[in-house]
């Protein structure tokens, strides 16, 4: 028995560990460090319809136990991803989850339609944190109806299961999740980054050229855990969890909160071997915890009562 194998819509994973979108490019760089086939899956970088250069630099800034990024969706466009990146990745025995982004619903739909037909793409991940240019730049992922509409539209054209990536920058993550579940999403991935900013005291200017950016890394882990805990008890579709994972213990914490698999982002930058290391460490940790199979960990800390907190 493979104690780490996990079954999710469209995804038969040999283990539940995958690099998070945008933190692993299209895998080429990490392939120099280890065999990508050891991974459960790979979430590739956000892909848009046309090639994009992204934001001016600086694009990253460090924060206490975290980092801000404002890459700005730099990517070669869906057709080149299909022509160049996915075939290259096909040499590895690893399912690909394609991260789909856009500025309009039409763009998402078109990217999803095309990329979901690639043979090694086993699922889509809709990055709904992007601003909707037709709706005054309000992110798709902050209005339940808009996110639901987008989900439905993408589901209609996708050849593979669709996971929707939740933005944590919302008042009620459970409302969002339920709307997206009802719209037919096959799964959720969460959380994307929190909006943040840093200012350089010497120059008086924001450090990021884009001024604001997305906060990731260990700093956001408690927020991710809380949101996964809440959402996983409110929906019945599976959740791939992410946000600050660095160790096998962190992975178990996400499973206890309700995740069925996890993704690792920022930690890849700190240690390129972090994913294979976690995969290596998990069996011994399961032994220590007296758990046969990692799936048994999902939702272990669930509790039906609702929680209340007052910032005090």
């Amino acid at each position, binding site marked *: 028995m493979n104690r780490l194998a996990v079954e999710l819509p469209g995804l038969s994973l040999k283990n539940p560990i995958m690099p998070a979108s*945008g*933190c*692993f*490019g299209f895998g*080429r*760089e*990490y392939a*120099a460090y280890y065999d990508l086939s050891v991974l459960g899956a790979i979430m590739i*970088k956000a892909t848009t319809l046309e*090639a*994009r*250069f*992204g934001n001016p*630099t*600086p*694009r*990253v*800034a*460090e924060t*206490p*136990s*975290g*980092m801000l*990024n404002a*890459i700005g969706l*730099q990517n*070669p466009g869906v057709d080149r991803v299909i022509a160049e990146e996915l075939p290259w990745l096909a040499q590895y025995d690893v399912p690909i989850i394609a991260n789909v982004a856009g500025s309009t619903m039409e763009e998402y739909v078109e990217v999803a339609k095309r990329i979901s037909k690639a043979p090694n793409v086993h699922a889509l991940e809709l990055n709904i944190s992007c601003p909707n240019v037709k709706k005054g730049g309000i992110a798709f992922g902050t209005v339940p109806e808009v996110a639901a509409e987008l989900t439905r539209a993408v589901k209609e054209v996708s050849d593979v299961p669709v996971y929707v990536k939740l933005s944590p920058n919302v008042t009620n993550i459970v409302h969002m999740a339920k709307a997206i579940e009802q719209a037919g999403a096959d799964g959720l991935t969460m959380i994307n980054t929190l909006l943040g900013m840093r200012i350089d005291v010497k120059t008086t200017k924001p*450090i990021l050229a884009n001024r604001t950016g997305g906060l990731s*890394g*260990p700093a956001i882990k408690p927020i991710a855990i809380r949101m996964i805990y809440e959402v996983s008890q409110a929906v019945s579709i599976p959740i791939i969890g992410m946000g600050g994972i660095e160790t096998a213990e962190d992975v178990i914490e996400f499973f206890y909160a309700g995740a069925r698999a996890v993704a690792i982002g*920022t930690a*890849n*930058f*700190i*240690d*390129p*071997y972090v994913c294979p290391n976690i995969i290596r460490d998990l069996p011994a940790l399961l032994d220590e915890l007296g758990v046969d199979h990692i799936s048994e960990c999902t939702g272990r800390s669930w509790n039906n009562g609702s929680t209340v907190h007052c910032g005090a």
Partner: protein
Amino acid sequence: MKDMMTVVSNRPIAHRIYELVLSGSLVQHMHIPGQFVHVKVGATPLLRRPLSLCDINQKANECTIIYRVEGAGTTLLSQKARGETVDVLGPLGNGFSVTAAKRGERALLVGGGIGVPPLFELAKQLSQNGVFVTTVLGFQTKHVAFYDEKFASFGEMYVATVDGSYGMKGFVTDVIRANDLSFDVLYACGPKPMLRALANDFPHQQVYLSLEERMGCGIGACFACVCRVPHSETAYKKVCSDGPVFRAGEVLL
């Protein structure tokens, strides 16, 4: 490659400038001047810090890094004592093309401030190849100057300081003009305005420039460190993996 390297020595050599000697088997993979290592200084700060290789000593299994104490990372690094370890990822990036300058040719090495260190290993290798090395070092002021004598051992060495407290008052470009320095290949590392000035002054010559950019991964995966390429809206190069050294004109400065 990633490994724990051991601090052999770590000492101030100028105001807020430290010379760090590290030992470890990773040195056997270090060959090219202008490459850098990505250093995790401790549990905090979170991200690695890119630092250029300044001197590579394969025989002793040692490499030297020179850094300026800026913020949290370099402050912590400055507190590392002999025998302690640091977590090093590298060598990374594409360094200077040593072979661009042939035996008997003249190389002009231009360093500004904390851009000086990678030129040292470059000067060493060029000299070994029989290239004539002239160095121009620019600093803010005398008490942050370093390695001037070491560079002088390879050939002519000029210094410029902004306040005139050491060498010529002014910028490296003033030194080059004043001394009418000529060269077959120019190699430079330093602040962007300096690199821009050099690229402008010598549009028809072989000029290699080492760039800096804030980094995430340091290996080409995160797209934090891109720069634009002429005549394209979407083309780019990554400072960490395509650079940090580029031919002048290859990327927009």
